[in-house]
């Protein structure tokens, strides 16, 4: 067992867990933040994407111990306040960017990261770039059409 401490969605959290605990299991099972999902076991689907120290990470592929002391943000923590929505969350709703909702948290976490990176690099996030950036996130419901639209809209709302 190892004592794992990190800041999750702005709150300091500390739990004793088995050494081999994955970050996604730490988040879901220990912290009971179940918005982060597990859709595969080969780091392909992206349903588990969270931000660790400001970077998008597939939490199924990182040990909780590797996030020791980190600042972690999950889908439950992206909005500014309890009753607020992040502009990207609003964009997904307004553009029908989700159906069953299972891949959605990972999509939104990937989307906000991509917008931030492109902005920092001064690059244009056009449709082609959004589609290529979504390589690590699989959706089976929407056909991506409205997810791409949502991210473009969310990017403009985040500006």
């Amino acid at each position: 067992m190892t004592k794992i401490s990190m800041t999750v969605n702005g709150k300091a959290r500390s739990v004793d867990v088995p050494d081999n605990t994955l970050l996604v299991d730490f988040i879901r099972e220990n912290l009971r933040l179940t918005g982060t999902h597990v859709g595969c076991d080969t780091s392909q689907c992206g349903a588990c994407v969270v931000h660790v120290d400001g970077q998008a990470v597939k939490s199924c592929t990182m040990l909780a111990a590797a996030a020791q002391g980190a600042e972690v943000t999950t889908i439950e923590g992206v909005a500014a306040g309890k009753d607020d929505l992040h502009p990207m969350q609003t964009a997904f709703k307004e553009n029908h960017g989700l159906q069953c909702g299972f891949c959605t948290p990972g999509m939104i976490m990937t989307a906000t990261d991509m917008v931030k990176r492109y902005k920092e690099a001064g690059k244009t996030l056009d449709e082609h770039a959004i589609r290529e950036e979504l390589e690590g996130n699989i959706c089976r419901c929407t056909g991506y059409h409205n997810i791409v639209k949502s991210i473009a809209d969310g990017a403009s709302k985040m500006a």
Partner: protein
Amino acid sequence: MSDQGIGARVLRKEDKRFITGKGKYTDDIIEPNQAYAAFVRSPHAHAIIKSIDSSAAEAMDGVEAVLNGQQLTGDAIGNIICGWGITSKDGSPMNMGAWSALATDKVRYVGDAVAVVIADSRAQAQAAAEAVMVDYDVLPATSNVLAAMKEGAPQIHENAPGNLIFDWEIGNKDETDAALATAHHKTTMDITNNRLSPNPMEPRSAVATFNEADDHYTLYTTSQNPHVARLVLSAFYNVAPEHKLRVIAPDVGGGFGAKIFIYPEEIVCLWASMKTNRSVKWTSSRSEAFLTDAHGRDHVSTATMGFDKDNNIVGFKINTKANLGAYMSLFSSSVPTYLYATLLSGQYNIANVYCDVQTYYTNTVPVDAYRGAGRPEAAFLVERMMETAARELGVDPGELRRQNFVTQFPHQTPVIMAYDSGDFAGNLDEAKAAADVAGFPARKAEAASRGKLRGLGYSNYIEACGIAPSAAVGSLGAGVGLWESAEVRVNPVGTIEILTGSHSHGQGHETTFAQLVSERFDLPTENIQIVHGDTDKVQFGMGTYGSRSGAVGMSAISKALDKVEAKVKKIAAHVLEASEDDIIIEGGEVKVKGTDKAMGWHEVGLSAYTAHNLPEGMEPGLKEGAFYDPTNFTFPAGCYICEVEVDPATGVTEIVQFTASDDFGTIINPMIVEGQVHGGITQGIGQALMEHAVYDDGGQLLSGSYMDYCMPRADDVPNYTVSHHSTVCPGNPLGMKGCGEAGAIGSPPAVINAITDAIGNNNLHMPATPSRVWAAIQQVSAAHAAE
């Protein structure tokens, strides 16, 4: 009237919980005293179980129990059954092999469950499952129909000689043969429909709790049809009687057919909960999902279509061999028969159609309904034949279709279906205009200047949804009725709960069903709550599959609303001292037409529950239920046009344009319908270009993860141009046809027709991977070189 009613693009009520991470899926649930199940699965495709040694596993940390098939059958848990009986040509019943939730004597596919470990944690259960020693006597295996039907092939079930499950036929053989014999032109093709893994993004999961004090079970499960699950678990598997079993399907992350069926894992979790007196949870890994979720399609067909000298179709004859896997899953037998061959007349006037279908066992996971279920197989076959025939006849593929379209309705096909409505030429024209087919030659020339091969392909699909009426499907072998139920509860404050037997796992019922009520009573959708997915709340229902929730589910709601409306009018007429015929409902009020006399909608609700002033003899309360059994299938149809560019150097296909014109009848929420079409087309493109569930000859699954099974990703597909050209369905009160599967049904032939047009070689099977397309291009080049 309501601006949130029928036809409005209302944003979804359910979205907030999903975008904030507050959805409640089965794996999110943790019960007190919960243990975890891990299954011991066969690594062999076909083997005798000689012995199982659980002693090492039982001694491991946290292990509660290790249970096997002998114990399961010893507790009288019944075998898993197929619920649709098919009769062979010779009158004999189908050969259903025994399927125990945990194998007792023999395993028949890689992943067949042999034992289960129940432990305190998921990791402990998995570790102990590794330590269960199963001694197998490995048998030869067979993984595809062409091998399974050969003489001397390994025998998978004793009661299915030659691995044959049934040999079924539809249509008129002699007349079709005669028509083909006199045909002026015949087109013949060998067509395979590739095997697919459905892959809803949420893996299957179950949390079962046996409450010893009440002798009662609760099952949370990833189901598209919780009431059907309860019925089957109770009536056939003897897990518990229905009144002692509550099944809840909470938020479900996609289904696509794979979550219709009742699998071994749910049965075992319920039984293991009783054995261990703990809640038992199992959640599939994606690797397990590839091995154990029912696959889809897997047909091998030969077809011949005959034309007269004026290019009218005179006959169509098809033989299909379908792989049903190692066991017969719940609706497996209906897919390659009544859900498939009944659509082989396509959108066309064909006097003579005959199809016979042989289904076989193989040492692979069971094959059952996957988005479209039989209709994609039919559409692919018919539309590949039409395009190929047009090329052979030297005529425009759109025009060959047009001259053969059914134009008069109702239209009785030779294969059971009676098409009730449609405007096939209207869809063709709309799609051609939107796709700018006229400008295609210029685009092709421009692509050629860049070294790309550009092609265009059509697909004019028709399908059948809302399978019914119950008496008819019963006569065809269905073990269930295919009606739907609804209950409308108007609360004393006027808010409304709709209880429905349909289930939403992405379709947006919480929004569209509320829109229906909003339309009827001119109330905001926020005052309307949709309740589904819980057998303790909703009395009964058949669930969601076959695009039935609109045409059947909403029709049931509509019927219940009729009854509520009638009672509301009676109460208002009584209170306002007017005639019922003069009562209208609008703007949140119930009014007397042409006067200023009115009462608030909520006041009618309150009147019904205070019962201080009701008409003589009227029961208090405002709650009505209805069961709706349709009079016919519905027939969504449309025209899809795909345009591709192929890189001849690499064989890579890019879909540069995809245009859809669909006829779904009445549309409640165009935003949601378009989303269904986008998703369906993408699954169809996945089937056409990249997806393939592959077993090697020995029955080992080669496509067992997202590293090997190629799912469509955002950069594989284009934006879509989707439009609607609808005719009203006369068969249900709302005029709806269904939109959930059309995209997946209609798109594969459009894609393959476009690629084969581009490369000039029609010999191309799905999935049209770059290597296959490249090889097909080389085949043409070699042929040209030889000339």
